[in-house]
């Protein structure tokens, strides 16, 4: 495979490797950021701090179940 890429195979492979590293670095950062933010949101909700829409939904559910 590497031989079939000719005398500049190192440059070709390095270009693709760098691209893969950059894409996965951005994807990893976005995923880690999302996990952190969802954890922060759960912590706030656990303390009873919710958005108005979430409070309305919770109230409606409580009325239906009572």
């Amino acid at each position, binding site marked *: 495979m590497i031989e079939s*890429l*000719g005398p500049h195979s190192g440059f*070709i492979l*390095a*270009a693709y490797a*760098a691209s893969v590293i950059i894409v996965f*670095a951005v994807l990893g950062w976005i995923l880690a950021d999302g996990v952190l933010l969802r954890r922060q*949101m759960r912590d*706030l909700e656990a303390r*009873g701090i919710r958005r108005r829409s979430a409070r309305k939904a919770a109230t409606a559910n409580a009325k239906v179940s009572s």
Partner: protein
Amino acid sequence: MAIIDLANPTRFMSLTDRLLPWLWGATVLVLGTGLYLGLFVAPADNLQGETYRIIFIHVPAAWLAMFGYGMMAAAALGTLIWRHPLADVAAKATAPVGAAFTLMALITGSLWGKPMWGTWWEWDARMTSVLILFLMYLGLIALWNAIEDPIKGGRVAAVLILVGSVNLPIIKFSVDWWNTLHQPASVFRMSGSTIDPSMLYPLLISAVGATLLFLGLSLMAMRNEILRRRIRALRLVAAASPVGAAA
């Protein structure tokens, strides 16, 4: 449903939640097909040999570097004219993804330039203007992080994005306006592409796949940004009111 309804953050979160798995599936399929055709099926170039195969990642990355900034410029208009919060979210979320693709274009271009031109870097118009684009992405990311109020930061960034968009035609036409090492446009030309279809189709398929990848990453980053602003709003309201009352 009107298009403006889709710009509602809650509806956007619900829509992208359903859309993203399909988008990632399409990305793997289309980008995988394009790169397979480019690396294993397309013939070698008669001048550059196998080295030209860097084109299948370099050119899509370079196109998307400019596409990302174009998207940010459109979003900046949405911020300044309609004051729509999702427009600012889109601009801010696209910046790191655009910066990553610009860096990819710079690195792969350098790795292509060394064996073909004999140099890693040349301060010619095309390369320098793309480097400026990368620095503008970084500057905008720093600006958003420096201003605590996201609404205020978004408006300042929107003005800077629109000023910086003058760089896009400079990048595009730099190879026509100045003598550069970089070759002139060979895909989208008035007289038709100069690339053989056996190489052109894998390149276009790779470009579509890379665009899907760019959109997938941008949509995920937008979801994060919406969540970040909701958390900030909840914390501000919680700090100013008794426990349990929030935005």
